[in-house]
């Protein structure tokens, strides 16, 4: 167990616990405005201070963790659930028209950064957390499809696959029995990295108003509110920023640590 793995796991777990805790308890109600108590610095009754509406920043960070994690987790799940089967299929039918179609489709999605997808969706359907999930999720599909195909192709060249074919097993069966178990580690590591990228993307979308809408708390939203206050109340910008930074750092360290622990030869793609 490396130091990376431990620090990463602790940081990630910390935010997961914060998010889980927010379902049963937060220090203050974040929907209750307390204008007279606005822009308090950290310390005292509000350990992390209050924002321009006098809301408790710690409570908002807890609620925001929930939004961030939920959006990123669902988006990564969409990417995995669709991307991995597509990648397996493309690898199993390597060189066929189907493979070509899947790969060109991937290239096409890559031409639409998740922000652009979000813009398109928002332009028509309006901004919401669900649309942020869809935008990030769509972008994750080709990430996993490419990675799966790339890892599966060399496996398909191995003799044990030929042995399985000699035993009459179908491509689908081989994909599930032989390919999938050999790429699981890679998917876990990449999944962690995509999770962290999802947190960043959610924050960015909320920041520009294309993600979660008020009153849903979100770290990106908090930063957007803090922008004009940065010179008079820097803590309103620093606290959510550090929350994002630490959560993402934790997940990245966890991903690297898992890689070193599971299989140091794993190559993750990071874009």
């Amino acid at each position, binding site marked *: 167990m490396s130091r990376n793995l431990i620090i990463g796991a602790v940081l990630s777990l910390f935010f997961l616990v914060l998010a889980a805790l927010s379902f049963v308890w937060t220090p203050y109600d974040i929907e209750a405005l307390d204008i007279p108590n606005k822009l308090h610095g950290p310390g005292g009754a509000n350990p992390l201070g209050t924002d321009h509406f006098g809301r408790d920043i710690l409570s908002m960070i807890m609620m925001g963790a929930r939004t961030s994690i939920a959006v990123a987790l669902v988006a990564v799940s969409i990417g995995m659930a669709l991307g991995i089967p597509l990648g397996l299929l493309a690898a199993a039918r390597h060189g066929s028209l189907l493979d070509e179609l899947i790969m060109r489709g991937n290239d*096409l999605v890559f031409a639409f950064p998740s922000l652009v997808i979000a*813009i398109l969706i928002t332009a*028509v359907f309006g901004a919401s957390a669900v649309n942020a999930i869809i935008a990030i999720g769509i972008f994750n599909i080709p990430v996993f499809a490419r990675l799966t195909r790339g890892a599966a192709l060399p496996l398909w060249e191995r003799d044990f696959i030929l042995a399985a074919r000699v035993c009459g097993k179908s491509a689908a069966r081989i994909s599930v029995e032989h390919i999938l178990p050999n790429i699981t580690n890679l998917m876990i590591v990449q999944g962690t990295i995509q999770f962290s990228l999802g947190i960043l993307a959610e924050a960015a979308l909320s920041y520009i108003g294309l993600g979660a809408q008020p009153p849903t708390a979100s770290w990106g939203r908090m930063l957007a509110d803090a922008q004009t206050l940065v010179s008079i109340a820097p803590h309103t*910008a620093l606290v959510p*920023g550090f929350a994002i930074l630490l959560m993402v750092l934790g997940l990245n360290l966890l991903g690297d640590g898992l890689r070193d622990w599971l299989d140091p030869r794993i190559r993750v793609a990071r*874009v």
Partner: protein
Amino acid sequence: MIRYALGRLTSLIISLFVASLVIFAVIEVIPGDPAAFMLGVNARPDTIAALRAEMGLDQSLVTRYFDWVTGLLRGDFGQSWTYKTPVAELIADRIWVSLPLASYALILSTLIAFPAGIYAASRRGGPGDITIMGATQLGVAIPNFWFAMILVLIFAINLRWFSAGGFPGWSDPLLAIKSLTLPAIALALPQAAILARVMRSSLLDMLGEDFIRTARAKGLSRRQALWRHAVRNALIPVLTIIGLQFSFLLAGGIIIEQVFFLPGLGRLIFQSISARDLIVVESVVMLLVFTVIIVNFAVDLAYAVVDPRLRAKT
């Protein structure tokens, strides 16, 4: 080489075609009646009818798509509903902020990442490597728009070296570049962190290859082998990332423009979204996607320059 380029060109054209179909479908088909959507629920029927006529909605989908695409090819992006000016003019004004910003950031990112990645790889496991890797770990985790806010707080508000935002125009190029510097740094550093990590790991892969051992057997020192043999081979995966990063810089620019109040495509697109000016959104998105696809095409060509095996391939 020519066949390779032609092959890539074909897929470029196909990508552009499909991308345009997707964008057209999302903007002009999904909302039902775009004119009614753009005018909102309280619009009077005759206003909607006027807009429908103006947008050519009385024609068939195929004709409308065809008109839109041929218009794009002629540089005619249509007429903005809210600004009442040609979309092409709106874009032309703003692209001179967004494109230089993305390019500036890409140059910065490459200039930082290449030396950092090469240095870290050549000192693998040493204190320099560990420091650089630690810094990139942070760089990867920082949200660029927050980093931008911190930069404003430090360099514009406290130190007053730069202005906190706005863009003075290109009449004074030095001043223009200065006002793009903080945004470019904010965009570039997180990308540089990623690029440096890719450069390092790609180089370390190459250093394990047989041909490096051959080079060492010829009498090249470790460093000579790294520079003469590993770097060029390591560029192949690095180029892929650079290509992908350009699209992120362009899109990320939209966000950074918000932080620095830059009059770029990002501002245009958000104003258009809130004004439901779909024609502008459609054109700007198409332009962004077009740029990304062209950059990827350029990266494909760069591969062939780096790797002779691709030149031979069909």
